[in-house]
């Protein structure tokens, strides 16, 4: 009786484990109680991820979105190889030309190849999307976890601050920070990180608040696990799902923010090409040279849709309750 309980627990959790795995019963009985908690946590989460991946692959829209995302990443990485011309190469004999065999997507106001600029634009978009999320997670998760775990006055001050940040119209604040700092890639990271962490901090805090009351956390604490270990090994792995979902949606949001900033001229510094900046400059000449803003617009639309479909898929796959 006594030995069947932990075995059935592992079976339930690690359902996808191949049976050849060293007999879980033996495994568990031989270990100290503390690492037992850790193992069961790890196997549970790995099966959650594997189940999630399976559900994600069944979602056709999400797979299509994922493929586009991968393609965009490849374009961004291999931009130097793929682009037919350098993005700064001007040709004043052929300004504002519509698509032709020499220039597949035409040329811009300075006679630069639109296709090459679009390819390098993908690099900026991906860089901002991923880089800004790294900053957001690095700031938001620790603050949220601290606030949720410590509670009391610290929590009160942090949540008050988060509420005030929330009251700000987000994009307005980013524009404010950017116009004060000046355009540039690093500043975009700072501006998005500075304003974007509140959402993820809130999520993390809510998760930690729930999880820290769970019995297994009490158990780990009773066995002498310290503050850092509790957060790292017992609380955070279980709080991860909503954070992953938030990040999947945060990436397109950051891409959108960069495009919007560059559109109004406070984002990426020229001559580095950015899709948003190309739309912003091109839309002024939309009557005469439609191709200047249409192609980057399509690129932004496709990217955003791909990330959204992929993100929706990830959310549905990791959190079936939400569907």
């Amino acid at each position, binding site marked *: 009786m006594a030995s069947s309980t932990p075995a059935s627990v592992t079976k339930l959790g690690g359902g996808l484990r191949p049976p050849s795995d060293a007999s879980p019963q033996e495994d568990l009985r031989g270990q100290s109680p503390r690492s037992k908690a850790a193992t069961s946590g790890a196997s549970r989460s790995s099966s959650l991820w594997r189940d999630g991946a399976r559900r994600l692959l069944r979602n056709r829209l999400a797979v299509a979105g994922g493929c586009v995302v991968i393609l965009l990443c490849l374009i961004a990485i291999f931009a130097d190889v793929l682009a037919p011309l350098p993005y700064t190469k001007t040709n004043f004999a052929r300004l504002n030309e519509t698509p032709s065999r020499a220039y597949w997507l035409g040329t811009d106001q300075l006679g630069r190849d639109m296709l090459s600029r679009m390819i390098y634009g993908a690099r900026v978009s991906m860089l901002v999307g991923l880089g800004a999320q790294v900053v957001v997670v690095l700031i938001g998760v620790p603050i949220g976890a601290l606030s949720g775990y410590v509670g009391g006055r610290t929590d009160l001050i942090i949540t008050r601050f988060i*509420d*005030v940040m929330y*009251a*700000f*119209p*987000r*994009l*307005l604040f980013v*524009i*404010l*920070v950017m*116009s*004060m*700092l*000046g355009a540039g890639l690093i500043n975009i990271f700072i501006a998005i990180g500075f304003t974007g962490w509140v959402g993820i901090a809130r999520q993390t805090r809510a998760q930690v608040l729930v999880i820290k009351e769970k019995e297994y956390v009490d158990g780990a604490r009773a066995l002498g696990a310290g503050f850092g270990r509790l957060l790292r090994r017992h609380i955070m792995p279980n709080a991860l799902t909503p954070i992953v979902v938030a990040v999947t949606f945060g990436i*397109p949001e950051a891409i*959108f923010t960069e*495009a*919007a900033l560059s*559109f*109004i*001229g*406070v984002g990426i510094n020229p001559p580095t090409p950015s899709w*948003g900046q190309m*739309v*912003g400059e091109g*839309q002024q000449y*939309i*009557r005469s040279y*439609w191709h200047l*803003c*249409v192609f980057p*617009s399509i690129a*932004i*639309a496709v990217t*955003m*849709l791909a*990330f*959204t*479909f992929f993100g*929706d898929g990830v959310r549905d796959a990791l959190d079936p309750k939400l569907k």
Partner: protein
Amino acid sequence: MLHYALSRVLWLPPTLLAMALVTFLVMHATPGSPLDPIAEGANPLSPEAQRNLAKYYGLDRPLHEQFAIFVSKAVRGDFGNSFVYKTRTVREILAETFPVSLLLGAMALALAVVGGLTLGILAAVYQNKGWDYVSVTLATAGVAVPNFVLAVFLIILFSFVLPLFPTGGWESPRNWVLPTVALALAPMGIIARFTRASMLEVIRADYTRTARAKGLGETPVVFKHALKNAFIPIVTLLGPMFAAVGTGSFFVESIFRVPGMGRFFVLSMTGRDYPMIMAVVLTYGAFLAIMNLAVDLVYGVLDPRIRY
């Protein structure tokens, strides 16, 4: 209820004050000043002239004093003169442009609510059929694609391919159509998605089954029993929706050359027009805070189950 409403109203001034303080700090903590523009080709002023100007605009005082002066004047609705448009006060500019933005925003919001509800209901009633896919696709596109990109597509489609509407301006209602649609699509998508989810839940609820069981036709079931209940969570969406429309209007206004407040948004920020920045941020902030408050209170009235 009254207690809750009162405490929420009392929280408004401190929130706005905090917002003003954060904006003020961001403005002053970053390098550069209105007198010494970093912009290329800016006219370099002699140090004496800079000092005179600083004195004239009160920029030579310590920061806490400047902030106190700002607050004491702003409470009376005086935001001072714009640094960039030197002959006009900020209040004049806002009085002229805010109504335009408000009209555009209100029209967009109305369209978003009507369109979003329609799409959401259609999607839920015909779940996993043609209508569902059409409305989910439309909703996703509206949410995901930035409105300035949508605006470009709208101009191409409805000004060039089918020359129905002008590409910009604000003279006649015909000019209003495209900006309103461009601004409405994002909130419309959000409303449609939530309506769909909320309706799907309600349609499966016991009381809907009861309504069907007693022989009620499809129309009264959907509109009287399901929609009424599905509507409640949608009301909470209106808060963030005001924010989306508010900040979104800036891009739409600049593409369609609408003479609204949005135009001054970035001009004031890149020009370091301190009085204008404070006024714009606070106007948007106050508007959003009040709308959020109104939405929360309405929510309590609509759903008697909510207790504060």
